[in-house]
């Protein structure tokens, strides 16, 4: 509680005591005095602000309403009512500020990934400095239990890192020398020495904090709507109050006092504060909760639009697939798998082609090139060499054709390397871009969330595209696309969205930036994605896991639902209160109570947005 809040609480306490005293006193000047002092004690700042604001041209605000209502009450001699209403109003304001403070605190705690200090090795000693003071290239010491202060590479030590604060992953990540580590993670078991690769300002944790803190800059349409609504609502209700005051008595020829009272109560109910606070808080809570799961949403609008996601378009390489080429199938005909691999790896040992590198990587063992001679690289086809006296050819179909070796038909999508020894076909090795383990589940999860259509765009061949799409269960595929082609496809798909439906594009490469901007919601892969993609995107998945997309959509819908609940609840109760006041079933202080209660509950409900399953 801030100092200001504590003083307020004291004031409320004193006023309440004074009020009760006033109530208990017998009717007379002393009673009036007690009640009026209570009123002034608890309402002087409200009155002053109302006066000041009118002076500045801002007439219609809650201070004005409360002032007019209570002064009116005093004018008709309802001293207890005036004092009680003002007292309840201040209690309401107090709880609102308190709840708001608590919500802000829990959001801040959620984002407490900021490393406070860094231990850096300088001139043989370990100094504790602030993370901003460490330069790239310096060596950091991260003890167990400490947070990694800057992005870097492990140079010594073996440990496990808790990355949950940044990625939502509960399983710790094992690291050994040579591994990259990102700032914000908590070192769990062993001491690590890390060489910093980026300054603090450019490290992951600083970027995430920056993103979340500035996230609400892009306000959700609902948020802006509510603020505009509030500005109209207050004068409207005041006008209604005036009508309520004047019309019935004029029509029925009497009852000014009664209608006057009701009009005053009307004014009290007209404060739109509950709406105003709870909606932005809800969206911010949603953003905070999502970031805890490793999903960074850049703005309230993005969260809102994500809730309406209808079509999801994926880039293939790097998004649904790992983006690195690996041996996926080894299909030997006459020899063992290992033997086939050895032959291919040995023959390709001097080639720098990515295919050769993947084969060698799969082989894993150091290549024994002692029996190797006469290595020739045949452009566009493969390699040939003499190995231990045998003639070995490794390459594509064209190469096999050239040497007259028949290849059995075996459908594999991807790049196929056939191996022949002495004119005999030995088998083939397929290299393809491995699918991410979660990709299939990612698509299934999206379908479960009600996404109408999933699409995949790729620059790869149709065969590979169809293969991947088939394995993942994707609805529509477009292959052979150049970057411009991807934009065209997205524009065509945008026309297919219905009503409020939005198009989501998920990508990672530099060439995805224009598409990310064009889509309603652009989602970028954060860890391995290019900086340009991350910049252009509206949502960033910190751990590159496509499954997080379905979670993001769920989070967006959850947040939107809470915001809608709050709006309906607040408006509903207000309208009910207005109706009750108009027919005389509720008086001023019940109205204030309703207002206070609604605000409080709406704020509490908003904090539910922080929890995302």
């Amino acid at each position: 509680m801030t100092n200001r809040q504590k003083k307020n609480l004291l004031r409320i306490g004193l006023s309440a005591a004074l009020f009760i005293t006033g109530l208990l006193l017998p009717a007379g000047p002393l009673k009036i005095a007690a009640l009026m002092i209570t009123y002034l004690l608890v309402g002087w700042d409200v009155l002053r602000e109302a006066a000041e604001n009118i002076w500045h041209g801002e007439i219609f605000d809650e201070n004005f309403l409360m002032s007019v209502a209570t002064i009116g009450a005093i004018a008709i001699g309802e001293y207890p009512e005036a004092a009680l209403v003002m007292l309840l109003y201040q209690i309401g304001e107090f709880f609102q500020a308190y709840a708001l403070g608590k919500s802000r605190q829990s959001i801040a705690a959620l984002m407490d990934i900021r490393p406070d200090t860094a231990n850096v090795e300088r001139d043989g000693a370990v100094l504790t400095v602030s993370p901003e003071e460490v330069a790239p290239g310096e060596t950091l010491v991260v003890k167990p239990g400490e947070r990694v202060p800057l992005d870097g590479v492990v140079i010594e030590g073996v440990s496990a890192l808790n990355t949950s604060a940044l990625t939502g992953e509960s399983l710790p990540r094992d690291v050994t020398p040579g591994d990259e580590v990102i700032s914000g993670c908590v070192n769990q078991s062993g001491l690590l020495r890390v060489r910093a690769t980026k300054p603090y300002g450019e490290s992951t944790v600083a970027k995430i904090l920056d993103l979340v803190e500035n996230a609400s800059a892009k306000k959700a349409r609902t948020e802006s709507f509510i603020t505009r609504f509030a500005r109209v609502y207050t004068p409207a209700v005041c006008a209604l109050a005036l009508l309520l005051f004047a019309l019935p008595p004029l029509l029925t020829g009497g009852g000014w006092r009664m209608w006057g009272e009701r009009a005053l109560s009307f004014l009290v109910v007209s404060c739109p504060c509950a709406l105003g606070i709870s909606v932005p808080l809800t969206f911010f809570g949603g953003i905070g909760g999502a970031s805890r799961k490793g999903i960074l949403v850049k703005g309230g609008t993005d969260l809102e639009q994500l809730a309406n996601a209808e079509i999801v378009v994926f880039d293939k390489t790097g998004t649904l697939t790992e983006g690195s080429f690996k041996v996926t199938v080894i299909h030997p005909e006459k020899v063992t798998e290992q033997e086939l691999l050895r032959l291919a790896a040995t023959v390709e040992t001097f080639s720098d082609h990515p295919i050769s590198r993947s084969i060698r990587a799969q082989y894993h063992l150091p290549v024994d090139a002692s029996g190797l001679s006469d290595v020739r690289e045949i452009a566009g086809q493969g390699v040939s060499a003499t190995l231990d006296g045998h003639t070995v050819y490794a390459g594509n179909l064209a190469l096999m054709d050239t040497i007259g070796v028949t290849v059995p038909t075996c459908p594999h999508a991807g790049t196929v390397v056939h191996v022949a020894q002495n004119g005999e076909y030995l088998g083939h090795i397929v290299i393809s871009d491995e699918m991410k383990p979660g990709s299939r589940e990612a698509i299934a999860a999206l379908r479960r969330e009600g996404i109408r259509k999933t699409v995949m765009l790729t620059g790869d061949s149709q065969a590979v595209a169809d293969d991947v799409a088939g394995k993942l269960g994707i609805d529509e595929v477009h292959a052979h696309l150049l970057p411009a082609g991807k934009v065209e496809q997205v524009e065509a798909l945008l026309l297919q969205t219905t009503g409020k439906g939005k198009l989501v594009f998920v990508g990672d490469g530099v060439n995805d930036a224009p598409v990310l901007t064009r889509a309603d919601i652009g989602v970028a892969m954060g860890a391995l994605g290019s900086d340009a993609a991350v910049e252009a995107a509206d949502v960033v998945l910190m751990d590159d896991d496509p499954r997080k997309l379905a979670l993001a959509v769920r989070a967006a819908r959850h947040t939107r639902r809470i915001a809608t609940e709050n709006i309906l609840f607040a408006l509903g109760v207000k309208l009910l209160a207005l109706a009750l006041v108009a027919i005389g079933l509720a008086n001023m202080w019940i109205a204030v109570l309703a207002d206070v209660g609604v605000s409080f509950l709406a704020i509490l409900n908003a904090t539910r947005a922080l929890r995302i399953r």
Partner: protein
Amino acid sequence: MKKTYKLSEVDCAVCADKIERAVRKVDGVTAASVQFVTQKLTLEADDAAFDEVLAKVRTAVSKAERGCEVI
């Protein structure tokens, strides 16, 4: 130039909106945005006149909402 400041005592979203509109009206301000939840004011103005504009913004903010200060 774009800079972010912290605002004290912003407890109501309607008030935040009021402040935002008041700041936008200040001479020399090209863009302004107030985030009520984080209590931040993002101000964009001409590099040359920035300090002047900031001073005017401070006054505008105090006028719009009593007790609210730009830190």
